[in-house]
């Protein structure tokens, strides 16, 4: 598998390490349901067959976290974005900059 890092170009997957589902957002620790929300954040995962947004870390490269959209059925990589940019956009949309 090869991942097109936005900073380094297309690189072999052995330069990267995998974390998991990027659609899961760290909950607000101050929310009243924080216990349940963090439990779900820590443990509950969908077993997605198809395009999935995943977090990958370019460990042997630029140290950027990436949001990689990968089809889990055939490993086709459909999109790669900087995780920081995705997270900033998400904050902007939600108006939740901390």
């Amino acid at each position, binding site marked *: 598998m090869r991942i097109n890092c936005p900073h380094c170009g297309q690189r072999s997957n052995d330069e990267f390490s995998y974390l998991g589902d990027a659609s899961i957002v760290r909950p607000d620790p101050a929310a009243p349901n924080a216990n349940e929300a963090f439990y779900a954040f820590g443990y509950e995962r969908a077993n997605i067959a198809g395009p999935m947004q995943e977090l990958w870390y370019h460990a042997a490269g630029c140290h950027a976290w990436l949001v990689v959209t990968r089809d889990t059925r055939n490993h086709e990589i459909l999109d790669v974005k900087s995780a*920081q940019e995705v997270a900033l956009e998400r904050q902007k949309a939600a108006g939740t900059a*901390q």
Partner: protein
Amino acid sequence: MTQSAQTARLKDRGLIDRSQSLTFTFDGVPYNGYAGDTLASALLANGVRLVGRSFKYHRPRGILTSGSEEPNALVELRSGARREPNTKATITELYDGLEAKSQNRFPSLSLDLLAVNGLLSPFLSAGFYYKTFMWPASFWEKFYEPMIRRAAGLGRAAQEHDPDSYDKAFAFCDILVVGSGPAGLMAALTAARTGARVILVDENFAFGGRLLSDVRTVGGVKGADWVNSVVAELRSFPGVRLMPRTTVFGAYDTGTFGAVERVADHVPVPAAGVPRQRLWRIVAKHTIIAQGAMERPIVFGNNDRPGVMLASAVRTYINRFGVKPGETAVVFSNNDDGASTIEDLVGAGIRVAALVDTRTMLQPATKSFARKHGIRIFEGAVVADAIGSSRVTSARIVGADGTSQNIACDLIAVSGGFNPSVQVTTHLGGRAQWQQELAAFVPGALPKGMAVSGSAKGTFGLASCLKEGAQAGEAAAVASGFQAAASAVPAADDEPSDISAFWHVKTAKHKAFVDQQNDVTAADVALAEREGYRSVEHLKRYTTLGMATDQGKTSNVNGLAILAQLTGKTIAATGATSARPPYTPVSLGALAGEHRGKHFKATRLTPSHDWAKERGAAFIETGMWLRAQYYPKPGENDWLTTVCREVNTVRNAVGVCDVSTLGKIEIHGTDAGKFLDRVYINMMSTLGVGKARYGMMLREDGIAMDDGTAARFADDRYFITTTTANAIKVLQHLELCRQWYWPDLDVQLFPVSDQWAQYSVAGPRARDLLAKIVDAPFDISNAAFPYMAVAELTVMGGIKARLYRLSFSGEMAYEIAVPARQGDRLMRTLMAKGEEFGVAPYGTEALGVMRIEKGHVAGPELNGMTTAGDLGLGKMASTKKDFVGRVLSQRPGLADPTRPRVVGFRPVDRSARLRGGAHFIGKDDAAVAQNDQGYMTSVAYSPSLGHWIGLGLLSGAESRMGEILRAFDPVRNGDVLVEVVPATFVDVEGARLRV
């Protein structure tokens, strides 16, 4: 010495170099061959047709094919450390001095006593492992398995270390072409002419594929001459790489292919500096699979006898190698390949006794050719059995009317049609599709960027292959962004390739083999079907059909076709087993490459490693690091003596320990303090400039992740350390927090673990020693630079340094860091200047003893299962802020006050030794799991106290001081009474830190 006759060598044929005679031995007998031969062709040239014994029944076997699909002609190549079993003679390139031995025979190839297994065959049929040897169970290990291992099995692996080297390499291209037959060559040429970067690989040592084996004309010249001209033109392009002797063994994601290049398998010993094999990872934008097709046999009686050979292999031996595979041939086919074969046999002067075809309507041209050359034609007929014990002497032909007759021959050329080589197209999950009119599986849905052309796709005519290859090459080049260049397709004819599916001769009287490598017969397939193994995957596992080194390249389709007939299903509905990498066996040496022995992983050395080596240090591997464990002095013969001396030196004078392996990260930015507050359980934003603080990080699930110190050098500039083991993990975690959780914070992280050499200088004389190296006007006095102070300064006359007043040993101590390249110099200076204070270096062992004496937790306690509370650090957690792991650390299970917590232990009998891993059990309780109350995590002999001490995790630890427990250690026969004590054994008030 022996100018052996090569009696079966044809005078006027072949692409071998008769000017280069080569000598080789087979089972110790010397023979001659020529450059350009394979071991198989050279054996045939010398009249050797019996080359091995079969896996289960020890039946005599010869050479069935001329390629990598060979199931029978497997030999042990070379000897001693280089002995390589199961080498296919059909693709082993002959070299001078080649040594080969036949396999699986006892005591010799011609007299094999274990051929008696053939008589036992009723007990060795499909599933015999599961049936015969089930009872009594105790017999399996002692009797059945050793017996089977002796009788069955393939060659013997070398017993010594492989003396050769193996290499790994990467290649990148626009277009990868796999296979260099007519389709592959045209694809590569057409693509190369556009300027695309092309890699052409072929498993053979010569490019050309079937054009080397068949008598064909391309563009008005002989096939082999056309191949030479194309290869010459390909060589002229700077962007083209030609890779013969290279097998693409697997397709992987995003256009990545695994390939093995046999760099030096065709020479006796690789030249100096040359690897035997090279493992390639080839990354291609587009790939054209043109691996051709493999002929399959027809299943008839005794179809495994030496002398039965695939028709296409017969032509290869005649045309490419100039060898007569027999004197009198019978050709048996269900397709037009039989007709081409009789022409080549006649052309080579080999008598053809009969053409037996399962079809009833042969081409008029074939009939008239046969008539002219006295060849009897049997239409709608079969070869039911090969007759002969160690080689074919005749063929029993059963005609359309059911009458049978024997026709004398020593060669049966058989063709059951062709299987396109679709394996690589299915590696990523695609399924081959059955095509009834071709009687073959053709590639199904292909991975992105892959195309298939030529007979690999089921396109069997030469002219069509050339055209299809050219089209595929052009399409791939255009898709890669190149301009199509006008490329004419050379003229050629499409040979007839009519076929009528035919699999298995039911009138056979003898064993009819489907899988010759695994000795699986048509009767075994029928037995499996009767016993309910009716899916192809079950059939494979029950009978072993399609397993082992050839992975059923000549047997899979026949096997499932016979199964389909038995179950009354179509072949399409029966389906095929999935092919997975590797396409052909790959040696473990190639996969390992240089990563073996000491080179298995990198070794990291600290900047003063050479100094420690000179000093005679014993080293220990911690992760990738090599750290000094202790520094024995002359006369110290046991490690404990050395370690106790090192501890006493630190406690009474001054010691220096290399702590350069700690993870080190610079944290810069206006939000650095805020950021650290969120990743450590304790507050870091309140840390004063010029101060350090111990800190702990949790994982998000509330479990302790790592501990270390944070130092603040400016409002917006922190420096943190991590444990050696977690240096990389913590950085990755912090990057996730910074980029993904809180992207808006103004923080930057810089890993600087390798930039600083860092040393702990510990003991009552530590300050006296450091005073000798710090540059004026830095004031190192206790008042100016108290416990937990940090500073940037210079030492040894202008060398940049950082000083931290931190202590892990419990003594008055400092950590001093200098740029990595100054580490060696600093260590030597400290030793020289410290002589007057009695300085000694100390290693990780003394470091560990002192941290246990002080009750500091480390790896054995931070074990991925303990919380901050378990470690006795719960009070550090701030309640004024959120931090990673806070919410989940409050779960009832993790906050439970009865969880095992870290506490100290000492033996009741002070002379007793403690053991890490011992479990705590009530003094009078039975040593059973339900009485388990925790376990010992760390132990050490404390020279300060004169007895063993330990740290351990114990339920309800705080309220149990003074209690006596058993530390039970059944593994080492230990059962010691221990007393629960506070975890700090030395200087409980911490007074020594602050002096």
